[in-house]
């Protein structure tokens, strides 16, 4: 046994993570990816103490529900052989390590900057000098879109290489939303501020990210969440999934100019988010999840209210979705548009919704369940074609599934209990990893504490970190006019990637 096997949000001593020579580290971590289709990298990051750098790689195994952790101590100057050539899912992680710590990665395809963090190793790298892949051809042309977009989406630059209307290559340059959240998490000593920061990682996944943060925090401070805390968070997580999926379906309709679908689904998102407002005072679930407490317990009055909302929602939702799935003009836009093959999705380590539309049953709720999900026997919905149609129908079915879960849970509402604040003091020199299935996919937060029991490193990984590459692959050989619908069908997070 030369690695450590842990389960979802388990706290271990930092020194228990086996440190090994890079050759072993390389073989171990590429081996899992190569040999098992159930393994995928959930986080690979560096922990700096003084001049020493500890690379920690966490690989989740969907078959066994465990997480394999291994580490390699280095100094940041020694060249390391890139794992990307053998396991492409490490590509962006290695770029990130190179950008943050200046580690020379040998034989990496192209060590492009990821997000231009403030304390990057090479300060000469700036947004203006991003090394785009370019062409020297009379026939092909390049189209640059963003970072300022016509809609109300976040900033990101898309560089297309096209042959007429056909996209040959898309490169996505992100980093415009970088706020230094990981550094702020460590710097801010106030727990409430940290929770608020977690909410801001990706505004549309406030519940998902804050729940993950709380799980990390509570595990580090050995605070066992009571049933009502787990209950409220899980319920809110599923409501968030429903609300965002509904909004995304509306946006997909807008992009194909189907006004009826766009306005009906846009309206249907409102009762769900308004219910969140009623319950927790904010439509997007801000201020809802706090470490070590249940700020807004779920009551039977709320349950009655939600039951009524669901009844009305379900009727209209099914009607409009039936309408969309029978509309030839809409179907012709969805079918065979923006296809991601199963092989590609597996190679890049796609997670969450994107993986599930490509025939990969990857869902933390089923493979690494905690809380209410342990008793649920969740069966992930899987689609096989990897096109826009698959992503639309997956959303539809996931909404129905979430609604069924919430309805079932509403039958037994746990008693509200009084809570003591969790110990502000965390376990010293400890490591925790927490995975949560947000609506986009698996959210992974890792925390390492120092000798005094304060955060030394906080690493956040939004599912978009893996999945942006899926979008770049999906649009190849599609028409450039179909890019917006592809983009919207993924609806990846810029802020979550840029941190």
């Amino acid at each position, binding site marked *: 046994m030369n690695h450590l096997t842990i389960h979802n949000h388990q706290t271990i001593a930092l020194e228990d993570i086996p440190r090994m020579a890079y050759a072993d580290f390389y073989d171990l971590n590429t081996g899992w990816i190569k040999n098992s289709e159930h393994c995928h990298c959930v986080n690979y990051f560096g922990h700096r103490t003084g001049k020493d750098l500890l690379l920690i790689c966490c690989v989740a195994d969907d078959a066994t529900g465990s997480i394999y952790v291994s580490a390699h101590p280095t100094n940041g100057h020694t060249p390391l052989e890139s794992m990307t050539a053998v396991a492409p899912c490490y590509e962006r992680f290695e770029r990130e390590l190179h950008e943050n710590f200046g580690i020379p990665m040998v034989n990496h395809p192209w060590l492009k900057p990821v997000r231009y963090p403030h304390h990057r190793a090479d300060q000469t790298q700036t947004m203006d000098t991003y090394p785009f892949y370019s062409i020297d051809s009379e026939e092909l042309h390049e189209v640059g879109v963003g970072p300022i977009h016509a809609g109300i989406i976040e900033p990101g630059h898309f560089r297309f290489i096209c042959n007429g209307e056909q996209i040959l290559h898309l490169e996505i340059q992100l980093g415009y939303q970088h706020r230094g959240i990981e550094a702020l998490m460590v710097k801010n000593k106030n727990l409430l501020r940290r929770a608020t920061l977690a909410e801001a990682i990706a505004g549309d996944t406030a519940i998902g990210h804050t729940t993950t943060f709380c799980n990390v925090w509570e595990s580090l401070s050995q605070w066992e969440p009571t049933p009502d805390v787990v209950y409220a968070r899980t319920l809110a997580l599923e409501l968030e999934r429903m609300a965002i999926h509904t909004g995304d379906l509306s946006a997909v309709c807008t992009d194909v100019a189907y006004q*009826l679908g766009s306005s009906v689904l846009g309206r249907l998102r409102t009762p769900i988010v308004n219910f969140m407002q009623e319950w927790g005072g904010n439509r997007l679930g801000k201020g809802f999840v706090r470490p070590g407490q249940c700020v807004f317990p779920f009551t039977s009055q709320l349950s009655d209210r939600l039951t009524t909302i669901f009844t009305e929602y379900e009727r209209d939702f099914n009607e409009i979705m039936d309408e969309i799935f029978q509309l030839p003009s809409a179907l012709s836009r969805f079918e065979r548009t923006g296809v991601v093959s199963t092989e590609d999705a597996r190679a890049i380590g796609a997670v969450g919704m994107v993986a599930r539309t490509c025939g990969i049953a990857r869902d933390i709720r089923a493979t690494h369940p905690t809380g209410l999900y342990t008793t649920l026997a969740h069966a992930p919905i899987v689609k096989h074609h990897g096109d826009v149609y698959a992503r639309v129908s997956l959303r539809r079915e996931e909404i129905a599934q979430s609604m069924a879960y919430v309805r079932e849970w509403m039958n037994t509402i746990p008693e509200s209990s009084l809570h003591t604040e969790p110990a502000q003091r965390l376990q010293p020199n400890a490591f925790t990893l927490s995975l949560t299935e947000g609506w986009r996919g698996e959210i992974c937060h890792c925390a390492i504490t120092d000798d005094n029991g304060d955060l030394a490193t906080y690493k956040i990984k939004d599912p978009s970190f893996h999945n942006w590459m899926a979008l770049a692959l999906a649009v190849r050989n599609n028409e450039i006019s179909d890019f917006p619908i592809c983009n919207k069908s993924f609806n990846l997070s810029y802020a979550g990637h840029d941190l």
Partner: protein
Amino acid sequence: MLSLVLIFIASLFFTGIVIRTKSLASGRKGPGVMQPLYDVVRLFRKGSVYSPTTTVIFQVAPTVYFASVVMAILLLPMGQMPGVLSFDGDFIFFAYILALGKFFNIIAALDTGSSFQGMGASREALFSMFAEPAFFILMGSMALLTGHTSFHDIFAELHLGSTINYALAGLASFVLVMIAMIENSRMPIDDPKTHLELTMVHEVMILDNSGFDLGLITAAGYLKFAMYGTLIVNLFVGSTDPQYAIPLFFAIQALMAVSVGLIESFMARFRMSHNAQFIVALSSVALLIFFGVLLVLNKLV
């Protein structure tokens, strides 16, 4: 002269009706019918911004485009009243004066040097090129049927005496409505409401135009819709007296605006590559009219 006045009046609220229909269909109240007009007035009060890469072409193009549409409108008759200008072969002049305006718009888009506008220009050029045969086969068949080559003579001669003529007029209005949709960049060819530059056709071509210039292009768009509506009205009005012809004119224009609004509410737009197929298919409908005319004239052996 009558047609000129009527087209100007109809253009004032045509787009307003389309937008209002779409709003009502999606359960919203929507802006007033005159809102598009206010928008143009607002744009007319503003100055234009020119990018340093553009030349004089970019600055004159909106004016040429607007002028070409007004020029085309001058040719249109209304029932028995001829247009301001009327001569043999004026329907060819009509098509090419519109093409001239479009040509200026396209080279102005290329003048900006933006990859977006180039994309829009190439799409617009392609789609109007495909729409051209449909228009000429249609008008050519009408000319063959009546033995005249000017709008006024053709429509004055066009008697909807027999059933087959009604069928032909029905097909002709379908072709004209669709040409109007293509030329005005409406659904299902183009989505005028979208904010996504990559999927636009007409809107992306005029992305750099602002203020007064944008006002001219927008106003020309309103006029163009009413203009194609008038062509359809003429198919049916024929030799009807003005007191019936004028209400009929507004009724048909309003009907057309409402149907455009309904189409845009209840279907998704085409995938870009399907547009070309769809537009070419219009030419085959026009060919059907042509064979119908041959049948009527007993020229089909």
